[in-house]
């Protein structure tokens, strides 16, 4: 069972029910559960969307798109049924926040899904978890069954004449399915390859109907926003970045864990105070600020606020909020190789720049690591990665190219020294996954 941690700087909004038994519906009700959805039914879609816009909530999957805005794009009239799709296919290395939400607060996920449905006029929602989360699916299934038993889901919910159904399921192991259009393909029982956009899911989504797709953490935030009011939620965070976020601090820190911090919280403080600093009193070498696809930051670049705009300004991305801390004993060449091996393994193969690009990046960085590299390889890596950017159907190509460019540009000297130190060795082994 994942260990819960705490720190005085935390502002507990979406994690406030963690460890309190709120996976049981009675406990959830005791802790203000299902109040927000009843407010939402009473006050209607325009009010919900206005509150969501006021909250400044931005998508927690990584793109940071304003949630209220996303919901408002769904056409009011539609010949086809509309759907809500909750993306719990949490797979970005360094990210394990949704894991805790499903484990400790499954009803918040249900309630958030219902509110999203009410806002856009959908009668059905899907909660899709990654395949490895089977034990969490069982928790979600029990929560959904309990909600049906109480009349909170199904026909005529809360006796209001409104119908809403939820189906939960898992994937079967594929990072690419975390991309919204690939997720829809997977839910339709197909290979998880991306769709061409436009049309965007808000217009043509799941089963061809208008669909809102939100990250699980985004959805879990929704009931809290309605309970405390959009404006109050916005004030907790920084400018244009409302509320709090579950930040996962992992790697070489003394106290790794998932902490709920206000948006805009200082990254350096998050590592040194909340996470307890670098393990074993070692020096800090680098920080991956938002999951493995986000470009690495150097120790002198981390005195910034953790929000989408400030991390963006520093040349990286807030991504999924998975902060990976790397100490000064780590080989960046090895770290870069492990990162690109992941993206090569997960590339769905649908478009060439990603399929070929990730493969050649892995081969080239692998050769450098194994001791058969030349300085020229570093130029090739950079050239290849730069030419993947923006040339793929979905962001996986960028997700592989961006961190690679970060490593090569910021640690070029280390790569060169590695090549020099190992150049006498033949390239005997490319570690295969």
């Amino acid at each position, binding site marked *: 069972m*994942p260990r819960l941690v705490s720190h005085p700087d935390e502002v507990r909004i979406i994690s406030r029910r963690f460890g309190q038994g709120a996976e049981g519906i009675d406990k959830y009700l005791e802790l203000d559960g299902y109040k927000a959805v009843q407010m939402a039914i009473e006050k209607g879609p325009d009010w919900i969307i206005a509150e969501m816009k006021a909250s400044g909530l931005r998508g927690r999957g990584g793109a940071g798109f304003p949630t209220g805005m996303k919901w408002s794009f769904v056409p009011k009239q539609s010949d086809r049924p509309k759907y809500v799709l909750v993306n719990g296919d949490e797979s970005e*290395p*360094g*990210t394990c926040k949704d894991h805790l939400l499903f484990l400790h607060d499954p009803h918040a996920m249900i309630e958030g899904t219902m509110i999203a449905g009410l806002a856009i006029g959908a009668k059905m929602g899907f909660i899709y978890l990654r395949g490895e989360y089977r034990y969490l699916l069982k928790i979600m299934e029990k929560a959904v069954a309990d909600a049906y038993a109480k009349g909170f889901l199904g026909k005529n919910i809360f006796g209001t004449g409104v119908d809403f159904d939820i189906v939960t399921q*898992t994937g*079967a*192991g594929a990072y690419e399915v975390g991309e919204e259009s690939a997720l829809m393909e997977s839910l339709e*029982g197909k290979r998880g390859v991306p769709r061409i956009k436009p049309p965007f899911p808000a217009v043509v989504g799941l089963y061809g109907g208008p669909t809102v797709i939100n990250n699980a953490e985004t959805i879990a935030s929704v009931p809290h926003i309605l309970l405390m009011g959009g404006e109050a939620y916005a004030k907790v965070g920084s400018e244009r970045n409302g509320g709090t976020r579950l930040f996962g601090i992992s790697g070489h820190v003394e106290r790794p864990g998932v902490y709920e911090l206000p948006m805009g919280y200082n990254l350096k403080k998050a590592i040194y105070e909340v996470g307890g600093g670098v393990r074993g009193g070692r020096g800090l070498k680098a920080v991956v600020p938002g999951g493995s696809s986000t470009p690495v930051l150097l120790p002198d670049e981390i005195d910034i606020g953790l929000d989408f705009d400030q991390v963006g300004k520093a040349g990286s991305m807030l991504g999924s909020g998975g902060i*990976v801390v790397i100490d000064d004993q780590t080989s960046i060449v090895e770290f870069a190789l*492990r990162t690109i091996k992941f993206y090569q393994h997960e590339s769905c193969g649908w478009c060439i720049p990603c399929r070929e690009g990730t493969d050649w990046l892995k081969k080239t960085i692998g050769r450098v690591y194994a001791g058969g590299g030349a300085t020229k390889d570093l130029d090739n890596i950079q050239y290849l990665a730069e030419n993947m950017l923006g040339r793929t159907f979905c962001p996986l190509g960028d997700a592989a190219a961006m961190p690679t460019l970060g490593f090569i540009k910021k640690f070029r000297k280390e790569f060169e020294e590695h090549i020099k130190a190992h150049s006498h060795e033949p390239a005997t082994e490319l570690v295969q996954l």
Partner: protein
Amino acid sequence: MSTPATTIFSPGLAARFDRLVTLYPVRRSALIPMLLYAQDEVGYISEPVVKEIAVRLGITELDVRSVLSYYSMLRTKPVGKYNLQVCTNISCMLRDGYGILEHCKNRLGIGHKEVTPDGLFSLEEVECIGVCCWAPAMQVNYDFYDELTTEKVDQILEDYKAGRGKETV
């Protein structure tokens, strides 16, 4: 697109499939869950599994195989009764995930995607499993084990050998 006259699945699983296909606006949506549950019961996705699922969903066997080959958790060969999946992705790597993998290899005497001769254990090096803040970690079938040490791994293996391990399905 129907319930087949005879089924290779247990009555419980067959009934579950009958219900599963009705949950979605489109029957085919049940494909991935069906493949997973079939794999849990049969051990892997065998040819008869592909055939029956295709019939149940009213799609071609090729449709099923195309999906089957895409998802990394779906397999076409048996694994050990207890399949160890050790994560070596970045957060685990930084906290000695590779050391844990090596330890498992040595203890079991098998490598990546191999099965022990008695069929009890198999081993896989896997990508991120979503327990980064409690690294290093592994799964045994669907059960998670986190903050691993070599001593903890030994204990886990002992427990499964003695039939005391967790078994979520």
